[in-house]
């Protein structure tokens, strides 16, 4: 049941998907894997939306050069607080009605089952395909939806993987080569792509609209280009 306070807090979005939709968000557990440029806006908007339990997974500690985009980490966190801890601190103060859990460490074949356990949706906010494929495999084993996002420069992409319904990440990007070293990225790019990922989560949970199933949204903010590619 939603409290009076929750009914007031979420009033404007209950106008979109009703109390029932809000209850569903409250009863859901969503994993944000990677709490960096994408993970920051994703976790922020999921907390704002009232997702009942948010699990934050990352092994890194913020660096000064992360702050142009990783907006959940502040100057005081640099070199000090691991990203899940840094983010959890803000999210707890932002929305005290939700639970925020953290796992500090890298996902591996050995720990993925234990770490992700009973989550309803996984949001891919990673910066490498090696770990993305680990998430992809796990999502297919457990039949959990996976919201994929990736960014570089002013460009980004989003698609939602639903095992049994869509292609897997491995099928979509079999040739992917990792870029070595640092890549260019603007905070606003991660903000746009991360916001779309958060929207995908809300759409999956409430049934509003059409998630990007078998569709890849590609965005180039430098040239105002939003294109949807059919993946069937």
């Amino acid at each position, binding site marked *: 049941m939603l409290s009076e306070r929750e009914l007031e807090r979420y009033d404007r979005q209950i106008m979109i998907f009703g109390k029932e939709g809000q209850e569903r968000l409250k009863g859901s557990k969503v994993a944000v894997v*990677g709490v*960096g*440029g*994408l*993970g920051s806006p994703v976790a922020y908007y999921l907390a704002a939306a009232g997702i009942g339990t948010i699990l934050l997974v990352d092994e890194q500690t913020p660096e000064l050069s992360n702050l142009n985009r990783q907006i959940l980490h502040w100057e005081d966190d640099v070199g000090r607080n691991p990203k899940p801890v840094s983010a959890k601190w803000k999210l707890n103060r932002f929305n005290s009605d939700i639970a925020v859990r953290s796992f500090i460490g890298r996902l591996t074949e050995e720990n993925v089952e234990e770490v992700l356990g009973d989550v309803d949706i996984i949001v*891919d*906010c*990673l*910066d*490498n*395909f090696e770990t*993305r494929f680990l998430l992809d495999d796990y999502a297919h084993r457990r039949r959990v939806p996976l919201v994929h*996002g*990736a*960014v*570089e*420069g*002013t*460009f*980004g*992409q989003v698609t939602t993987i639903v095992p049994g319904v869509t292609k897997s990440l491995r099928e*979509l*990007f079999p*040739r*992917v*080569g*990792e*870029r070595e070293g640092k*890549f260019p*990225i603007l905070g606003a790019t*991660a903000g746009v792509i991360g916001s779309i990922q958060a929207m995908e989560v809300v759409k999956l949970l409430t049934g509003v609209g059409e998630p990007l199933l078998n569709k*890849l949204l*590609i965005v*180039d903010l*430098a*040239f105002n*280009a939003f*294109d*949807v*590619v*059919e*993946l*069937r």
Partner: protein
Amino acid sequence: MRIKVRYFARYRSLVGKSEEELEVPEGITVGELIEVLKERHNVLRNEVFAEEDDLADVNVSRNGRYVRFDEVLRDGDVVALFPPVSGG
């Protein structure tokens, strides 16, 4: 036959335009088109396309649908090239 090629993200910056129309041989495949584009735009060869054809590091759609490199193109097709991105 004529096709239209659209460039996204860093391909667009490298080539210097968002799209172009090309005259290509009948029956050309996506993979062969990529070879043509490498000839036409040396920057693509140097900076973004892998040397090995089957490892080419590029995503391609044909008329708005994601395709493999062995797919055969038809007159009037719109082919879009977009780079793989992995950052988060």
